[in-house]
């Protein structure tokens, strides 16, 4: 067949007949029509073989034509696993098959199918591992066979984004139930979002025949669709999938390259039902499809699915499909009805009147294939003698198409994600859903209602409930019942030769499921995990029901007792790009950032911040750090410390609050003074440090570490939620920029600038803080000694940060001022023996181990962690952070290297640098308590594995009497 032979209108509602589109499949040029899916275009060109199955590499063609199965997964350029029955064709698309050796047409791996008897369910658990070590060889071979499509590792990222939507009501599914629900709710004033997975409204109305004459669907469809499209209160989204249900009706809808995150008050799921297959031998051949797939092919794409068909059914659908097929010129060889007789005798009569043979109480026992299993060529039809069993007499009927319908399984996935429970009556073969959360409703065939009038009523009923919840309606709501039965109770006909597939995705046959139970895996979940049934791309849409039936029978339980496996999001496989969205990695720059760049700084990350590590080229790293350090020691340096956390604590209880949060005593801290502030966790572990400045009687300004401030701020809020002290806490980190001006000439530099503060040592001594104006810039000045030199931390509003930097650099020019970076600061503070929380501490470090006892007030009644600190400090200590030096450096220890004591690990090196000022390699390490006294020696195991001996010394390494910072 080619495009000229498409069926006449009104068939083909999705295609544009005058717009041919050329694409390639497996290197062959294919001409389809605009609106075709890849699968419909291929079938129109008589290309039925679309994919190879996962395990046996069997030829597969379309099964549902609705993106519900894995048979049509193809490779689209560099993109693997694209559903060919959903993907619309585009010009120049390059489509190919997946998972084959050689070509799709002749796949060498198809040989595996002949060995299926040697690969019983779970065979890999019983083999490949003997003798010891054998598995390592097999594993590589088996691993290579895994996977379906091929990922293009060079693929360039495409633009995907997200949008938030808010509605009163979302209706999932625009079939008759969804359309009528949306209309009713919208008429009552609700704002409705109607989401439809397919490209057109109507659901089954767009392809299914509901009556003998074939008129009902068309007339109903046009009246509903016209009203919905014209309604101001209804927003319609087509080709859009509500792909999960998350708590409180938080619903992701995916459409093209956008993820809509939708919040609705009420949600009605009218998702329809999945037609089910019949299990018989070779039920996977190309040319065998669901009845609905044949209808979709004709009505949506005007593609004639075959020349001579056998319809295998367990309900009325098969008859209606047969009428549709016959109308379009397909010869119907027979309608094979598994039931005793049709429930609707007039329907059966209509089919017989059309000259179609009807065989009741019969089934297809085996499909016969053309060479290479490429297509169905005939069926072996037999009488059903008992459930699942057939008579020995066979009748062979030639055909090139089998349409089947064993029944309908509700599309329950969203509802079960919401906690809904699916139960099944073994007597009536009907499903019910219960235990749905409030504000989530169900309507239509997913609710077990199939007759069109009832379906429409059920949609209106669900809308009524939603309207009631929205306070938009208060009419009494009556339940809708459905008499018709769509599910045949035992559509499973095992064949001794197998290939009677229960799960097409995973190539699992009826015996595989039964054998799993015989091997002891009786629970449905164990059957799934052992056999992998339902674990493939279609996640059990077609395998769940036959599996539950087989397991129930094999373990002598009911299907309800057996249960079905859990439905998890997403509903259909969705591209990771949709969840990832736009790449968004915020970075924080300080107000002086551009100055650092201009000065040639190497920037490093500190949380989200970027900070200068040092100034100069990467190759000159060591020299740059050493020279910056000497500059600070000998003259004056300037470092940007804007990333330091800043927290304002204000109010009558400010001092009391600080006193409870930090370990030191703060109640009597004078205004205008700073004090070292250590924060311990409730376990007594040191988790942050900083400086608390008393700006006023009721006002503290506290600094915190760059990466710790958010946590400190949260802790403060959390504690005061309990304490209810009269204070206000604000994280002002970004509001302030700050520098540390440090070095013997620091005062001289600052004195060059116009300020209203007396900088003399008497008026502004070490550890004092002042509020001042420097060249008109309001500033907080702190005399602190992190790097151990005369220094001023100057905090100014961030808008003035760059100006401050420029003023200081200009004023310092005559003193040869140089900027220095964080790495230099690390060396300078190490020379002073100052710890960096997080680097020189770990998640067990208490103040005693860090020699911070002096910063812990023993007199005050309480601080956060005080109880734990008391307990651990009273215990026998096992380790201590010590300073060490190395005289002769053979191999310099690195941070993280172990301190070894005998056979044991005593601790590790936390900081280690070469110090030009000290003239030695210096460092901090955790050492065994017995080796922690100055004069002891510790052994450090370096990269080469050698042990390096280091001397424990007292801290600080440089300027032991701390005179320089107090100048």
């Amino acid at each position: 067949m080619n495009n000229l032979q498409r069926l006449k209108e009104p068939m083909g509602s999705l295609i544009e007949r005058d717009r041919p589109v050329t694409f390639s499949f497996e290197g062959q040029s294919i001409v389809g029509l605009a609106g075709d899916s890849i699968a419909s275009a291929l079938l129109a060109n008589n290309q039925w073989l679309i994919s190879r199955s996962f395990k046996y590499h069997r030829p597969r063609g379309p099964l549902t034509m609705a993106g519900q199965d894995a048979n049509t997964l193809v490779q689209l350029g560099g993109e693997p696993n694209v559903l060919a029955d959903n993907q619309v064709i585009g010009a120049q698309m390059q489509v190919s098959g997946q998972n084959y050796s050689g070509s799709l047409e002749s796949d060498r791996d198809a040989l595996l199918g002949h060995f299926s008897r040697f690969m019983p369910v779970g065979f890999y658990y019983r083999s490949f591992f003997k003798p010891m070590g054998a598995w390592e060889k097999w594993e590589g071979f088996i691993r290579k066979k895994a996977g379906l499509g091929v990922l293009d590792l060079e693929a360039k990222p495409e633009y995907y984004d997200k949008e938030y939507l808010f509605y009163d009501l979302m209706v999932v599914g625009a079939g008759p139930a969804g359309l009528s629900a949306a209309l009713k709710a919208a008429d009552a004033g609700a704002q409705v979002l109607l989401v439809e997975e397919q490209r057109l409204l109507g659901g089954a109305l767009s392809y299914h025949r509901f009556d003998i004459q074939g008129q009902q669907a068309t007339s109903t469809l046009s009246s509903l669709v016209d009203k919905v499209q014209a309604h101001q209160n209804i927003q319609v989204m087509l080709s859009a999938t509500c792909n999960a249900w998350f708590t409180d009706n938080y619903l992701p809808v995916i459409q093209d390259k956008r993820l809509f995150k939708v919040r609705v008050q009420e949600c009605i799921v009218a998702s329809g039902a999945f037609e089910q297959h019949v299990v018989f031998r070779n039920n996977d051949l190309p040319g065998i499809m669901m009845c609905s797939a044949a209808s979709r092919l004709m009505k949506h794409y005007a593609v004639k699915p075959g020349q001579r068909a056998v319809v295998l059914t367990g309900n009325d659908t098969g008859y209606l499909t047969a009428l549709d097929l016959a109308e379009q010129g397909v010869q119907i060889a027979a309608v094979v009805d598994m039931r005793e007789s049709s429930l609707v005798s007039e329907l059966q009569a209509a089919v017989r009147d059309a000259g179609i043979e009807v065989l009741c109480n019969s089934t297809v026992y085996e499909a016969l294939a053309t060479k290479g299993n490429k297509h169905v060529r005939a069926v072996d039809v037999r009488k059903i003698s008992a459930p699942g069993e057939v008579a020995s007499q066979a009748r062979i009927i030639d055909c090139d198409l089998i349409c089947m319908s064993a029944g309908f399984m509700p599309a329950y996935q969203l509802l079960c994600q919401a906690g809904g429970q699916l139960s099944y009556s073994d007597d009536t073969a009907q499903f019910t859903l219960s235990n749905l959360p409030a504000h989530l409703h169900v309507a239509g065939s997913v609710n077990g209602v199939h007759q069109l009038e009832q379906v429409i009523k059920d949609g209106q009923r669900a809308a009524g409930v939603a309207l009631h919840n929205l306070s938009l309606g208060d009419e009494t709501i009556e339940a809708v019942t459905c008499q018709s039965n769509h599910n045949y109770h035992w559509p499973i006909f095992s064949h001794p030769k197998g290939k009677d597939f229960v799960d097409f995705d995973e190539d699992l046959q009826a015996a595989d499921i039964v054998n799993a139970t015989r091997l002891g895996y009786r629970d449905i979940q164990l059957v799934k995990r052992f056999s992998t049934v339902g674990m493939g791309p279609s996640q059990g849409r077609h395998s769940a029901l036959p599996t539950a039936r087989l397991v129930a029978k094999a373990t002598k339980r009911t299907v309800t007792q057996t249960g079905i496996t859990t439905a998890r999001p997403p509903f259909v496989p969705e591209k990771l790009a949709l969840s990832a969205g736009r790449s968004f990695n915020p970075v924080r720059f300080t107000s002086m950032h551009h100055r650092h760049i201009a000065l040639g700084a190497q920037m490093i990350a500190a949380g989200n911040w970027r900070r200068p590590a040092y100034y100069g080229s990467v190759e000159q790293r060591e020299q740059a750090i050493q020279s910056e350090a000497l500059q600070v020691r000998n003259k004056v340096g300037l470092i940007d410390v804007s990333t330091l956390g800043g927290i304002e604590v204000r109010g009558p209880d400010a001092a009391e609050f600080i006193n409870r949060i930090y370990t030191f005593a703060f109640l009597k801290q004078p205004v205008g003074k700073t004090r070292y502030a250590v924060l311990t966790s409730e376990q007594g572990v040191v988790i942050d440090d900083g400086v608390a400045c008393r700006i006023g009687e009721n006002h503290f300004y506290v600094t915190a570490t760059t990466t710790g401030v958010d946590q400190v701020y949260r802790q403060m809020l959390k504690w005061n939620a309990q304490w209810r002290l009269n204070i206000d806490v604000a994280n002002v980190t970004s509001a302030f920029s700050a520098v540390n001006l440090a070095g013997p000439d620091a005062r001289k530099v600052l004195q060059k600038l116009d300020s209203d503060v007396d900088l003399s040592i008497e008026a502004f001594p070490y550890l004092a803080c002042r509020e001042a104006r420097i060249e008109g810039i309001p500033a907080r000045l702190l005399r602190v000694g992190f790097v151990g030199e005369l220094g001023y931390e100057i905090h100014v509003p961030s808008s003035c940060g760059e100006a401050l930097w420029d003023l200081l650099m200009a004023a310092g020019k005559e003193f040869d001022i140089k900027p220095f970076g964080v790495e230099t600061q690390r060396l300078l503070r190490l020379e002073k023996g100052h710890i960096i929380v997080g680097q020189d501490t770990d998640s067990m470090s208490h103040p005693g181990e860090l020699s911070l006892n002096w910063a812990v007030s023993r007199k005050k009644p309480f601080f956060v962690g005080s109880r734990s600190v008391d307990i651990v400090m009273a215990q026998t200590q096992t380790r201590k952070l010590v300073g060490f030096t190395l005289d002769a450096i053979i191999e310099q220890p690195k941070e993280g290297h172990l301190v070894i004591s005998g056979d044991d690990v005593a601790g590790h090196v936390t900081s280690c640098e070469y110090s030009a000022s000290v003239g030695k390699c210096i460092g901090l390490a955790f050492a065994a308590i017995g080796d922690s006294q100055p004069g002891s020696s510790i052994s450090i195991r370096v990269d080469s594995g050698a042990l390096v001996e280091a001397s424990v010394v007292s801290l600080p390494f440089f300027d032991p009497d701390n005179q320089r910072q107090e100048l």
Partner: protein
Amino acid sequence: MPFSLLKYGLNSDFPYEKHADLPSPSALKSHYDVVIIGGGGHGVATAYYLAKYHGITNVAVLEKGYLGGGNTARNTAVIRSNYLTPEGVKFYTESVKLFKELSNEFDFNIMYSQRGQLTLAHTDAAIRGFRQRVAINKHYGGQSELIDPQQIRELVPSLNMNPADMPVLAGLWHTDGATARHDAVAWGYAKGATSRGVELHQLTEVTDVEVQQDKVTAVQTNRGKISCGAVVQAVSGHSSILAAKAGFKLPITTYPLQAMVTLPVKPFLDPMVSSPSLHCYVQQTSRGELVFGGGSDPYPLYSTRSTMDLKEGLLANAVELFPAIAQMRLMRQWGGLTDMTSDYSPVMGLSPVENYYLDAGWGTWGFKATPICGKTMAQLVAGNGKVPELIKPFSMERFYRFAQVNEMGATAASH
């Protein structure tokens, strides 16, 4: 194709009853010497070692759902020993050793796959931590090394070396890192235990624990009361709830942990790759699927529901690490319950109730400890409460002594 498969194919009646891995359901007895609560990997492993190595077979494993259906079924099957503390490294290193021989010990293939685990450092602080972990691993016989960006590129060519603007500075390459078929581990242990006389009772929920004079005497179940000599609780995810029934409180908070899997593609990623800074790890399974995991949910909850927030955050970071996978499709998202302790180490050994033994606090690190837990818990039970050296550091009373075994840095999002 191995010859062992011929016997199934040529045998028209396979499977015989003798092939069954697990026995059919049986009646519950009124007394067992040992009752193990929880039929996950840890529970059946404990039963296995009790039966095989200590000759204790009057044992019932009680499982409220199905065998291995809790966190054994929900974890991402990663096995590694590159922890931070000496206690942790010693313990998990023993576990890895046992894992390597399990298939042959069971005569059941657990598909142990040693492909190595690569953890990425994006900061200096991470490099320091990795160097320490490498040193400690090596000291206790594990296989780890610190590798540079060039080595990382060669190992994982598909990796973005600057994900989320955080350059990859170094890697912790743990060649011992592996995966196994997690379900098969539980099945193999169950098979070995039940074939030696242990009874596995699924759909059997313990509703109460009877304690007399601080000693456990019986458990109540939905199928009746069972008296017992000793009880092992191995109910990861519900440890606190069960302990409360036995009358004591555990230092545990329970958080959901979610994971995800894609549709399969042909293999392109051999090692497991993890970025603690991005709270994300990725591995490609033997089926070709990518499995993603991250950190636990930010608030405590007893629910295994999935959330959109976690999916968005985790997948955004996964795509940062491997930009090409943006084109791959997510197939399934699920959740488990993690019993977190404040030091990210388990709670094992004695409890305040005599003869009631604890195997709890398994957070996000339970699967990889399955064999060594089974072995040491069996030793504990068989020794009438004499605690094996290997698990002494994990005792519950460590929290009262402030003697924690802190694995925080070696645990977060690197499983």
